[in-house]
């Protein structure tokens, strides 16, 4: 137990408390730390949770999945956030899937290609296919834009397409927004990004005929997806406010919040 905050006497320092009466009188601080793609989901959950529990302060440090897992293991944070499943080497931790995230395959709006198979996507990514006309598009070089090594999104994408270590990117960008922007700006680009962040500015294609939506992600028909995890230490009793926050995230009643944040609730 090297937990850094005590449950008592730390007053909330947020102004966002909505004034709703809490079910039980909780107080203290819940620190979360990790994946940047979970920012929206965790942010929404935290905001809603704090509205219900005026005495609790949920903080979020967007340090990256790796750092989040480490922090949870070292006890420097209450909840680690990871946008990928735990590796075999990361032991002594409990990962709770709170949501699923579709990884949208995005192309420029001007690109006529509407659907790709997983195999085609893999070939585009590894550079086996270098021209769009080979996959039914117009003549033009394929510009593959991906995430940096270590990213949960990249990990998810490369595992599902089974091209680990083989992808050849034209650009490696460090965040979801940058990928979307780059694809938006380049007619020949293809990239991947968390479904929650994809907007009208780019086109999300269907994969093997399946559109990336909440429903298809949840029932597994849309294949390119990865889990959002909350990581805690194995076998440790969590402080009530920490447990309450995890429960809150898993509760059916709050599924709406996760949906609004663009992800898919893990509980059906």
């Amino acid at each position, binding site marked *: 137990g090297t937990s850094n905050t005590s449950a008592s006497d730390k007053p909330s320092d947020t102004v966002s408390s909505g004034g709703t009466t809490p079910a039980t009188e909780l107080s203290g601080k819940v620190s979360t730390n990790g994946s*940047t793609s979970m920012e929206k989901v965790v942010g929404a959950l935290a905001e809603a949770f704090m509205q219900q529990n005026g005495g609790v302060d949920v903080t979020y440090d*967007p*340090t*990256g*999945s*790796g*750092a989040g*897992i*480490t922090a949870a293991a070292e006890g420097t944070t209450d909840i680690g956030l990871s946008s990928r499943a735990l590796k075999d080497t990361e032991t002594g931790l409990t990962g709770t899937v709170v949501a699923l995230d579709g990884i949208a395959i995005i192309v420029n709006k001007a690109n006529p290609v509407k659907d790709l198979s997983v195999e085609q996507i893999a070939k585009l990514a590894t550079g086996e296919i270098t021209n769009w006309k080979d996959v039914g598009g117009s003549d*033009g*070089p394929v*510009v593959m834009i991906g995430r*940096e*090594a*270590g*990213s*949960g999104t990249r*990990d998810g994408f490369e595992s599902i397409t089974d091209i*680990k*270590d083989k992808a050849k*990117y*034209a*650009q*490696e*960008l*460090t965040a979801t927004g*940058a990928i979307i*922007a*780059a694809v938006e*700006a*380049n007619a*020949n*680009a293809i990239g991947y990004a968390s479904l929650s962040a994809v907007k009208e500015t780019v086109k999300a294609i269907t994969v093997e005929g399946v559109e990336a939506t909440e429903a298809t992600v949840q029932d597994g028909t849309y294949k390119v997806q990865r889990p959002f995890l909350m990581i805690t230490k194995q076998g440790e009793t969590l402080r009530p406010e920490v447990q309450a926050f995890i429960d809150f995230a898993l509760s059916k009643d709050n599924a709406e919040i996760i949906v609004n944040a663009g992800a898919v609730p893990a509980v059906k």
Partner: protein
Amino acid sequence: MKLKKITEKIMNTVFFFCGMVAIASVMLISVYMVLSGLPAIKEIGLTNFLFGKVWQSTATEPKFGILPFILTSAYGTAGAILIGVPVGLLTAVFLSKVAPPKLANTVRPAVELLAGIPSVVYGLVGMIILVPAIAKAFKLANGSSLFAAILVLAIMILPSIISVSETALNAVPPEYEEASLALGATKIETIFKVSIPAARSGIAAGIVLGIGRAVGEAMAVIMVAGNVANMPKLFGSVTFLTTAVSKEMAYASGLQKQALFSIALILFIFIMIINVTLNLILKKGGGGEK
């Protein structure tokens, strides 16, 4: 009387400690850089690390070669200097020797303003305007490239080159210029054959300062360089030493993370060499005028 003496002693000590903060900071930075950078180098092997051409930090069989980053940083900096120095030096000459005072007084604050623009803003504009423009101009599929980074860096180092060079040019004794003019040289000939050579140590200092800035810049570069660990190609997507560190730091773990610190250590050593060079040049410049 006693009290006064004690206060005096105390204040002396307090100020002494304030003075030591700079030393302590540099020591702290050096120690941390070395301590955190060495383990990975030990594990990977210095030659493999420095001269390895492949960086695949998260592969199942990870490879940690940072030659692409080193070369990219070197080429990128050289490119920025190649573009930034002529423009900067010529602008400095213009401000110091040619421009009517009124015009110089309009351009000079503009230069200072360039120095004040945050690097993320350079990155943002570079990403939105420069990168697509390069793609268009050179008919590239992808404009994020070493070339884009070079242009952004060249602009970013302009202010330091201009202001240091201008100071050096202004310090050239007017007698040199008089002598040259009296021999029948034109003003321009005088500037290029006498003033600039006489100011060369100051100008060199400006260039070294520019090199330091270019080598160390991360945030503007990461937005325009494409960030793939390729060996440098002018119109290819590349990773600098700085961006190699900042790109993966957030998600790294284990040996990968340690290797990132090793890259930072190499960067730190580069910068220290540049700093010491700068110091030497400045010292020499100060003494050589007689």
